[in-house]
């Protein structure tokens, strides 16, 4: 298979920190303009904008990989990718139950807008979605995998909300063959420090919260068949073909 241009970590207006202009339609359109072929929308603890994103991706000729960026109990961000929007929604429903009962204050955190594929607001979830769920890292991984998902620890080189900033080292008992770095040049340093076993695969995405950030988005998978995420990507390509 040809190399694949991907963007596997970005936020829509359902994330309170995501710009209101990041509607699923706008996001998918901008991603298409930026030359992205495989797009994962990964809002904080919600799959609410994935149905609209799936429709928009189909319209723009992109492949959507349904995703959620989960905040674990340890306040670690874990990217979870799913074979279908329905599987992601099942995870989203579960996550909402495990979020603390703290409402989103839009003036402080921003709006949480759920949109349809015509850019209409159809819902505003009440609970603050960026909060930590009551699911720890190990349990989140198990739950996502039970739904057919695969997990990638987010931005390991970030000084907050990453496995390495919160726990110091990658827990030995958890197997994450694929990890995300903002700057892949930093992988070696963490491996040499003994904080991270050498990863099989490193992904670099934009973590875009604003439309402008999408222009510089994503990375290239030289051999998509060899990716840790290939079982999901293949499934999505098949679904798209049919």
């Amino acid at each position, binding site marked *: 298979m040809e190399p694949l241009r991907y963007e596997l970590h970005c936020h829509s207006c359902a994330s309170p920190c995501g710009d209101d202009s990041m509607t699923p339609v706008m996001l998918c359109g901008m991603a298409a303009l930026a030359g992205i072929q495989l797009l994962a929308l990964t809002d904080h603890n919600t799959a609410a904008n994935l149905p609209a994103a799936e429709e928009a991706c189909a319209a723009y000729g992109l492949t959507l990989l349904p995703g959620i960026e989960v*905040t674990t109990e340890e306040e670690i961000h874990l990217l979870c990718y799913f074979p279908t929007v329905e599987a992601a929604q099942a995870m989203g429903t579960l996550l909402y139950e495990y979020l*603390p009962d*703290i409402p989103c*204050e839009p003036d402080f955190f921003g709006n949480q807008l759920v949109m349809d594929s015509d850019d209409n607001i159809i819902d505003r979830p009440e609970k603050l979605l960026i*909060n*930590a769920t009551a699911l720890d890292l190990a349990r989140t991984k198990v739950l996502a995998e039970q739904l057919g998902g695969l997990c990638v620890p987010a931005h390991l080189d970030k*000084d*907050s909300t990453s496995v390495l*900033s919160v726990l110091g080292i990658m827990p030995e008992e958890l197997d994450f063959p694929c990890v995300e770095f903002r700057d892949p040049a930093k992988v070696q340093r963490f491996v040499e420090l003994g904080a991270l076993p050498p990863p099989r695969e490193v992904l670099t995405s934009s973590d875009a919260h604003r439309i402008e950030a999408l222009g510089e988005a994503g990375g290239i998978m030289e051999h998509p068949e060899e990716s840790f995420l290939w079982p999901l990507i293949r499934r999505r390509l098949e679904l798209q073909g049919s």
Partner: protein
Amino acid sequence: MTNKEAAGTAGFTVLCAGEERTIRSFYCCDLLSHVMGQVLEDTCWCTVMGNINTIAVATLTEAACVVLCHGIPATEEMLRRAEENGITVLSTNMAEFDAAVALAKAGGIAL
């Protein structure tokens, strides 16, 4: 005791001098989501979380000040945001609980 007076207590240094506020209680915790749900306004919050999210939570909860404990450094981003939001940030080599006790004693605040 005001956050300004707390800053003058032995063992504490000022990383960012924000708006003057009176300390009414203390809280020691590192999980931001927990602090967000529990902390009352005018709290002196002792933590090891030296990142920008700490300032967001301190602003939201109207904390009197943040005390970074164990000599943990603050990121530049954190201090820039603290400056913008008028949040006082102190630093100490003490542990969280010891820092709260030291400030409570200095200010005559009941724990």
